[in-house]
C-alpha cells in the first residue's frame, strides 16, 4: 500500500505528459483512413490498392488523414513525410496514394490510435495490390464510363 498510492498518482499524470516517440521502419500501403475505418465503401479489403486508387486521391486531396497500413494490419496515421508536414491535403501524401512504401520514422501512440512521423520514404514500390481484379473500382463511379 505504501508504494501503491505514488504509483497510482504517477499513472494519473501520464496522459498529461508529452508522448514519447519510438523509431520504427514500416512497410505498407498509403491508404484512405476514412473509407478503411468507416466501411462507407465496403470492407477493408476493397478500399485498398488499385480498386480504390482514385477514391484515395479524392480523400487525400479532400484533407482526410492518410494512413500507412502495415503488413501486420496495423494502421499508422501519417502526420509528416520528410519535410512535408502538410498532412491535410498535402502534395507528398497525394503522390503516394495507394502506393506501397517502406518508411522510416517516429512512432507515437495515443488513446488507441497509432501515428507516424515519416523521416524518409526508403522505397516506393508504387501500387502493388491489383484489387480491381476482385472488386472492380470502389466506388464504381470513381472510374467514369468513357465517352
Amino acid at each position, binding site marked *: *500500500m505504501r508504494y501503491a*498510492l505514488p504509483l*497510482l*498518482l504517477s*499513472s*494519473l499524470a501520464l496522459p*498529461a505528459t*508529452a*508522448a514519447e*516517440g519510438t523509431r520504427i521502419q514500416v512497410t505498407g500501403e498509403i491508404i484512405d*483512413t*476514412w473509407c478503411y*475505418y*468507416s*466501411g*462507407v465503401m465496403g470492407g*477493408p479489403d476493397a478500399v485498398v490498392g*488499385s480498386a480504390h*486508387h*482514385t*477514391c484515395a*486521391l*479524392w*480523400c487525400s*486531396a*479532400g*484533407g*482526410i*488523414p492518410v494512413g500507412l497500413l502495415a503488413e501486420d494490419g*496495423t*494502421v499508422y*496515421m501519417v*502526420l*509528416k513525410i520528410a519535410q512535408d*508536414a*502538410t*498532412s*491535410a*491535403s498535402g502534395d507528398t501524401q*497525394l503522390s503516394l*496514394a*495507394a502506393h506501397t512504401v517502406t518508411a522510416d520514422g*517516429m512512432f*507515437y501512440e*495515443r*488513446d*488507441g*490510435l497509432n*501515428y507516424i*512521423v515519416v523521416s524518409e520514404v526508403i522505397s516506393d514500390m*508504387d*501500387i502493388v495490390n*491489383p484489387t*480491381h481484379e476482385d472488386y*472492380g*473500382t470502389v466506388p464504381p463511379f470513381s*472510374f*467514369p*464510363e*468513357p465517352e
Partner: protein
Amino acid sequence: MMRKLTCLLALIASPLAAQDFSEGSEARSWNLYAEVPARFEAKVVDVLCELSGDCPDNCGDGARQLGLIRTADDVMVLPMKNSQPAFTGAVAELAPFCGQVIEVDGLMIEDEDLNARNIYLVQRIKAGEADWIKANTWTKKWAEAHPEAAGKGPWFRRDPRIKEVIASEGYLGLGLEADATYAEENF
C-alpha cells in the same frame, strides 16, 4: 485509505472504459456499421504538435491534421471527416478554432475488428455562446481557393492536382494502358 484508493482506481479506469457521449446529440446517421452519436466538449489541437512538440503558429493554418482533446477524459479524438458526403476532411471546419475549447456533435466510429477507436465525423460545432454551425464548409472553401477549376460537377472531378495524377497514372493508378483494358472489359 482503501476508499481513496478505490476512487483513484475509478479515475484511472474511466478513460479506458468506453464512455457514452450520445446524450444531447442530434447527429444524423450515415448508416455506418460502427457509428455512435457523440456530442462533447474538447480543445482543438495540432496533432503533430501534441505528439512531437513540433508546433507552428495557429496549428499550422489548416495544413495539419487536428485533434480534439475531450474535456471529460483527456482523450485525443481524431476528427477525420466533416459532414459533407464529398470525400472531405474536418480540418477546414476546425482550423478556425485552434487552441479553443468548443463543443462538437457528430458520429464516433468504434470498430473493434479494425481497431478503430476515437475516430470522428464532425457534423456541427458550437464555440462559446455562439449558435451551432454546420461543419460543411469544405467545398465552398475549395471553390474559393480554385477559381480556375470552376465548372459543372463535383469538386473531385475538377481538382487540378487529382486530374494531373489521373492523367499520368490512370484511375487505377497502374498506367493508362491498364485503364484502357479495364474500360474495354467493363463498359
